[in-house]
């Protein structure tokens, strides 16, 4: 089973039925897998805060939801994370490509990478860093944790993780 299939299987196992995405090169394979899944409604969004609004609505409609996005999106979603997702106690797994880490070819990506963990930490968002393939063994439990706690969680997936995958 590919890592992309494993991720989507864990989503489905956790009854996630509504997923919004904004692409990143590293996420191309998992987005294809989401699109192909017959158990998941895939709704691409134009901006990640919009996507979080869609996810909040779907959750209130009884469908567990999740967002797949790049770490640069932390910058455009802080207000939404704080005043919608956290304020209303809405669970939201965020599968995030951690661009700008070791192996990154694009220097500009490093600029947001150096702030990523500090921002998530400041927001009190439980954060899990996937660096090697076996780190993904915990994904099922992390997703479950988000819905149990009714909190957003961040799963940062770096270049080494996707290379080893």
């Amino acid at each position, binding site marked *: 089973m590919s890592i992309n299939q494993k991720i989507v299987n864990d989503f489905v196992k956790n009854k996630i039925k*509504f997923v919004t995405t904004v692409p990143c090169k590293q996420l191309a394979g998992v987005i294809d897998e989401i699109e192909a899944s017959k158990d998941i409604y895939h*709704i691409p969004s134009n901006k990640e805060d919009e996507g979080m609004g869609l996810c909040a*609505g*779907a959750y*209130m*409609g009884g469908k567990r939801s999740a967002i797949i996005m790049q770490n640069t999106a932390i910058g455009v979603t802080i207000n939404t994370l704080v*005043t919608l997702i956290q304020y*209303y106690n809405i669970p939201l797994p965020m599968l995030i490509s951690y661009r700008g880490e070791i192996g990154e070819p694009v220097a500009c990506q490093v600029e947001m990478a150096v702030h990523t963990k500090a921002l998530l930490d400041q927001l009190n968002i439980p954060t899990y860093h996937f660096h090697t393939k076996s780190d993904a063994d915990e994904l099922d439990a992390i997703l479950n944790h988000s819905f149990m706690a009714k909190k957003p969680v961040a799963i940062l997936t770096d270049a080494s993780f996707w290379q080893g995958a």
Partner: protein
Amino acid sequence: MIRSDVLKTLIPIISDQLVVSNIGLPSQELHLLDDQPTNFYMLGTMGLSSSIGLGLALAQKAKVIAIDGDGSVLTNFGTLPTIANNPADNFILLIIDNGSYGSTGDQPTYAGMKTSLSKVAEACGCDNVVECSADDTAAAVKAALDGDKMTIIVSKCESGNIKVPVIDMDAPVIRHRFMTEVSRRNA
């Protein structure tokens, strides 16, 4: 007619419907006029009423009315292509277009100048876009509810606000009360 007058005419029609209402005065006015468990009040997050409404409509069967503002739609323009390309026939987006950022003191928006939100919605691919006057808004919402087709309504009204208290309910209480009602309607 200003926004609160329009909302008043809507109450008999939307009182028993699932409503997502926009940040600031729109939510406060709705709360004052007709607080219902079917109302989801946004206490922050300008721009996302239409997105929350669409997500809710796509996830379950009951009809959903998202009450939005011109300023909020302008700040989240990306919502219109998403709505157009993911049609939910139980979804009505009602944009109260008073041509201003009402909640912050009626500073003018571009929607009150050269920009037509109904034309933007059409250009984004939305199929049923209705622009109406404040007086005709209740009838337009009623027709959309009877219609079973996703509809975007742009209600052109005047700027201006009434004095309303802030909403004292806690956000998780608003959400929990709303979700209980949503699941009851889908049982």
